[in-house]
């Protein structure tokens, strides 16, 4: 554990750590572009300059290992000049097309110019022209002019995804990032290159031009795409969710997440959601408020007894499972609780990085609660009792993320053998329209709208906080369980709501106004 002095403060650092790591751990901000804690050291941006006592020239912090008694300083004029000029070199051929660049607002060049630069540019020559709007693959667009050639993306495809699609071609100031001949940047982790790009050179096709970065709020959550449970940051505003980025967690996902996980914000948005509960009667579907629907079904549920069954998928939080299983076993006196597993055969699949075969975020959590409550019924039991007509009422906590539940039609048919089906569901699916007479669809809150915890594949329980509310009437599984059991609950009104119904009546309700909602209410998101 060598000791060193950084900006006059003596600290102890881990063996073999570099100066930039030591400064990073101390919370000292060092200008840098090419260094990334999850990648190898390239040392090409030449910005992380530090003054080390005894060395005549400034050194890069990313490739200098801390040695005993080293005296490091990054506040001297020499360092400041070096960083200032380093930035100037980065910017002389940068097109400065911030107005049409998606990265504007979260761009490394903008940030570091404001922090370390603030000089008057002296470049009066023509800039180098390179390719713009290059299609790299199904997910990423490249703008070579904006690129500062930090080589983070190249190192990512080489070291992390190990797919080696990207390289730097040509020499000198004509160098460009590109894919090798005939290859596309097409791997399961390609969008990480967009995250690590410190400038707007790599942009995500999905997010491209949809929002400016400064219109988005951030909220941390846990990805519900698979049992890895990557830590994520969601970006949203009043129009809904726009993108997802990974958050560093050494225990779970490191710095990265997969491209599939980034798509999951989509089903959370209003367009894909059940906003009202539906009840199918002889006359067809009718809509009611979710809370009222849950109360309505409580008579059937309470009367169920041994004829009542509960089907759970691994996509809800542990707290919700505890609540609903508690209520069903204690208050409703049924042990007919089943685990709906979608693709058991590929549960163990793993791509050696992040993606796991179990596409439910909380299978482990569900099984733990099952064990605690001594529930041991198998899926075969459910099928036989449904066939025999022993089960008359089924409550189904349907999957939130439908992407990997391909057999929903078959399952709807299976549950239709019961007389009453109460389907708790977040995202819309056409198969649910085929539910029999006397069934209800009750909208549920999605994973970003509630607090709780997910237990990932290795038994690590991760707590997540509520990000925002999108469908305020929707219920959590716990609330639905209480209401179905006939309990009285009070749901606190939420200040973050996205519904038209909550708007004061005197406002103009024209189509234009509805579209303008985002701008009008921007300040209050």
């Amino acid at each position: 554990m060598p000791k060193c002095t950084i900006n006059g403060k003596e600290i102890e650092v881990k063996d073999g750590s570099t100066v930039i790591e030591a400064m990073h751990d101390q919370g000292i901000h060092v200008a840098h572009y090419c260094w990334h804690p999850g990648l190898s050291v390239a040392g090409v941006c030449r910005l992380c300059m530090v003054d080390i006592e005894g060395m005549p020239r400034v050194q890069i912090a990313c490739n200098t290992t801390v040695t005993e008694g080293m005296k490091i300083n990054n506040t001297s004029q020499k360092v400041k000049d070096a960083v200032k000029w380093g930035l100037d070199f980065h910017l002389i051929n940068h097109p400065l097309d911030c107005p049409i660049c998606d990265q504007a607002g979260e761009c490394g060049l903008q940030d570091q110019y404001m922090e370390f630069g603030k000089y008057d540019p002296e470049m009066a020559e023509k800039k180098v022209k390179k390719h713009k709007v290059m299609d790299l693959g199904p997910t990423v667009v490249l703008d070579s002019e904006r690129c500062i050639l930090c080589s983070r993306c190249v190192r990512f495809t080489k070291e992390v995804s190990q797919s080696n699609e990207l390289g730097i071609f040509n020499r000198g100031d004509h160098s460009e990032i590109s894919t090798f001949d005939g290859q596309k940047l097409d791997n399961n982790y390609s969008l990480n290159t967009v995250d690590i790009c410190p400038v707007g050179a790599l942009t995500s096709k999905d997010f491209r031009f949809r929002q400016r970065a400064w219109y988005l709020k951030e909220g941390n959550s846990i990805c519900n795409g698979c049992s890895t449970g990557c830590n994520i940051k969601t970006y949203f505003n009043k129009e809904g969710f726009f993108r997802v980025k990974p958050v560093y967690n050494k225990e779970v996902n490191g710095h990265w997440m997969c491209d599939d996980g980034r798509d999951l914000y989509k089903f959370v948005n209003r367009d894909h959601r059940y906003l009202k509960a539906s009840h199918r009667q002889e006359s067809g579907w009718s809509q009611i408020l979710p809370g009222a629907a849950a109360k309505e079904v409580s008579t059937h549920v309470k009367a169920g007894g041994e004829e009542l069954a509960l089907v759970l998928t691994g996509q809800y939080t542990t707290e919700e499972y505890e609540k609903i299983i508690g209520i069903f076993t204690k208050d409703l006196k049924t042990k007919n609780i089943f685990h709906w597993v979608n693709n058991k055969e590929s549960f163990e699949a793993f791509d050696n990085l992040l993606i796991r075969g179990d596409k439910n975020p909380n299978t482990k959590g569900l099984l733990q609660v099952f064990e605690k409550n001594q529930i041991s019924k198998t899926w075969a039991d459910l099928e036989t009792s449904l066939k025999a007509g022993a089960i008359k009422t089924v409550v189904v906590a349907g999957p939130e993320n439908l992407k990997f539940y391909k057999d929903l039609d078959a399952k709807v048919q299976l549950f239709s053998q019961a007389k009453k089906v109460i389907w708790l569901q977040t995202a819309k699916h056409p198969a649910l329209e085929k539910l029999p007479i006397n069934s209800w669809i009750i909208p549920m809150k999605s994973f970003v709208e509630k607090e709780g915890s997910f237990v990932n594949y290795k038994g690590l329980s991760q707590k997540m906080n509520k990000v925002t509310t999108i469908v305020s009437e929707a219920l959590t599984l716990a609330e639905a369980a209480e209401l179905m059991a006939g309990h009285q609950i009070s749901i606190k009104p939420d200040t973050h709501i996205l519904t038209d119904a909550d708007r004061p009546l005197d406002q103009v309700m024209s189509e234009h106004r509805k579209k303008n909602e985002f701008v009008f209410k921007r300040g209050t998101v």
Partner: protein
Amino acid sequence: MEIKLLSEHYSNPKFCELAGYEAFGGYKVLKTALTMQPQQIIDEVKASGLRGRGGAGFPTGVKWGFLPKNGEPRYLLCNADEGEPGTCKDRVMMEKAPHQLIEGMIISGFAVGSKKGYIYVRGEYFHVIAILEQAILEAYKAGFLGKNILGTGVDFDLDVYSGAGAYICGEETALISSLEGKKGQPKLKPPFPAVQGYLRKPTIVNNVETLAAVVPILRDGAAAYKKYGTEKSAGTKFFSLSGNIVKPGNYEVPLAYPLKDMIYKLGGGLRPGRKLKAVIPGGSSAPVLTAAEAEVATLDYECMAGMGTMLGSGAIIVIDDSQCMVDMLAVLTHFYSHESCGQCTPCREGTGWLNKIVHSILEGRGRLQDIDLLVKVADNMKGRTICALSDAAALPVLSFVTKFRDEFEFYVREGRSKVKGASHAQMHH
């Protein structure tokens, strides 16, 4: 006066063949060297004071001593990627005496414990590659290369590798990258090549002249070699004389030879009626010397460093008073912006920027503040990158602008050359 330690028999056309080489005592040194202890050879080279002839002038024996002492496989690379503008000594050495280099490499390989060597030859020297390959074939047939050399149990294999013409591949880590089959870009140091080089194994990279000089050192002994030159700059060295001079060519002289004599005695002086204006003493990367400085300079590492320039690869470019320094600098800045590998930002962007500024002055669009800007940009490129190319690009700019500022100012004000009287467009049409 020339001292022909290495180039003694260069005039003999047979010297490039094995028979001819052996006739003049070739491969005799190898036979004695293989009976010595490797450490003895290293000590001898250390004692001779031989310094790297490629440009940096690092003591060769010390460099060999950096290798780890364990039995890990290691490589000996010969840097024959002679790309420095003005330099042409290695080419002549390989053309005239390939066996000298091969002998030097076998001895050096034995000394550092390497069983495999490569000669990385500049891509444009394709005829040299043919000569080297022929010579290596002869050496294999004669048992000087391969397994169990001359029955001593020493193994050494040698191969020629052709570069593709990139200047940067003359930098040792870029050369290693290129040899590994990657893009020829310098690698971050540390780790140094002596610890982790070619294929991540300890590697020694030496210039052609350095490796060849091992032969006379072991033949005559370190003391005899040290007789030439000064205490710190010992031995003889090839100098490639070019530019506005009557007799350009390669000359082998002892170090600390006066630059004045080099130009006027060996080089035959300038053309009639011309006056010396400047001398670039060590290849295009070395800061330029004014005529007054050239008068007193001696060709050794210390004197050159004292004058703020360097001996470099020993390429002396003589500039007389008919040359426009702005025009000259434009050639250099274009060269470096074309040859920058593009890895480090200050060099990638800085070389291009310098080139654009100098060209805008040439094209009559220059502003007076551009001259100061040149200095500022060059100052901030220096010492900020992985390899020395950024310095190599910045140093000529700094020395040209500071030493010949009046020419630059005249060009900016008048839009034409002070020396030639014509503008760039007029000169080139």
